[in-house]
């Protein structure tokens, strides 16, 4: 065997070995791993993540003091993200089912967010910029999309959905507005805008 052929054989063996070992983890794990990430900068922050299935992702970012974040996910393919910046903010998200996505954002002080979802393929977005705001969403169904956005002070939003393929969009500006939506059924689109002085 010539030296060129020998070197070529060695390269082929190396490539084969690399291919086998690079593909081995993917063959063993058909779905992705469950990942949890917590970043805290400040004092007395509390972050809790509970996950009991594969292929899920939970992330918590807490900047400031005395913030509380809680994520619970049971099912595959769920993603929950919490961003908190300020003081005494509380965000809780509980997801039961598959392929749900939830993101909660808080900038300010003494804000509160709650998500409870049971179903699949739901999308929930909650945003609070200001102080003393409250928002909660309870979803039982699939393929629902809920957006709750509060900018200002002292707002309150409650969304309850029982059904599939619904869309709810809440937008609150100013001070001290209240919104409550309770919907039972499928294929509805609900949009609300409120401004308070």
């Amino acid at each position, binding site marked *: 065997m010539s*030296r060129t052929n*020998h*070197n070529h054989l*060695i390269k082929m*063996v*190396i490539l084969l*070995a*690399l291919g086998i*070992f*690079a593909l*081995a*983890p993917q063959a*063993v*794990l058909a779905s992705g*791993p*469950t*990942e*949890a*990430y*917590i*970043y*805290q*900068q*400040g*004092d*007395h*922050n509390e*972050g809790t*993540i509970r*996950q009991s299935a*594969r292929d899920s992702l939970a992330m918590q970012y807490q900047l400031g003091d005395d913030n509380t974040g809680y994520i619970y996910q049971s099912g595959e393919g769920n993603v929950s993200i919490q961003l908190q910046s300020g003081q005494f903010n509380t965000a809780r998200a509980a997801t039961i089912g598959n392929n749900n996505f939830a993101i909660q954002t808080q900038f300010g002080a003494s804000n509160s967010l709650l998500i409870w979802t049971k179903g699949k393929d739901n999308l929930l977005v909650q945003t609070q910029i200001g102080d003393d705001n409250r928002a909660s969403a309870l979803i039982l169904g699939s393929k629902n999309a809920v957006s709750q956005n509060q900018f200002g002070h002292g707002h309150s939003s409650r969304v309850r959905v029982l059904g599939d393929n619904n869309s709810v969009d809440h937008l609150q500006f100013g001070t001290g507005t209240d919104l409550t939506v309770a919907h039972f059924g499928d294929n509805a689109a609900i949009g609300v805008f409120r401004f308070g002085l």
Partner: protein
Amino acid sequence: MKIFPGFLLLGLITAAFVLSSSIGSAQGIGTVVQVGINNDTYVYQEAFSEVIVLQRGKENSSSVEQAGAEHLAGVVQLGEKNSIEVKQLGQRDLLFSMQLGFENYANISQTHPVVAPSRAYISNNDAFTYQQRLESVADRR
């Protein structure tokens, strides 16, 4: 003799990929980063998981409990009066901890779970602990 470097290279690359694939095949991955004072972390994982905890500040505590086999845990603390408590309840576990500062405390236990029928689950565990500065205490069982 001329083919020896080729096979040596093959072996090194293979070993590297074996190690990287075993780490990358974890079913649960946890990462915690805390910057501040008086923060606490508790992580519980079951089989084939890995966790990385980074804490910077004073009076932080990190508690890791891993049940099952083949875990990887890495805990790093920068500051004073920090504490690490790690329990790896299985076999083929690996722990790496580092504490830089005064009056830190580390308690590392690699043992069998309470419900295990025997002590046969204690095997092939590795722990690497590093503490810098004085008055630090490491207790490894």
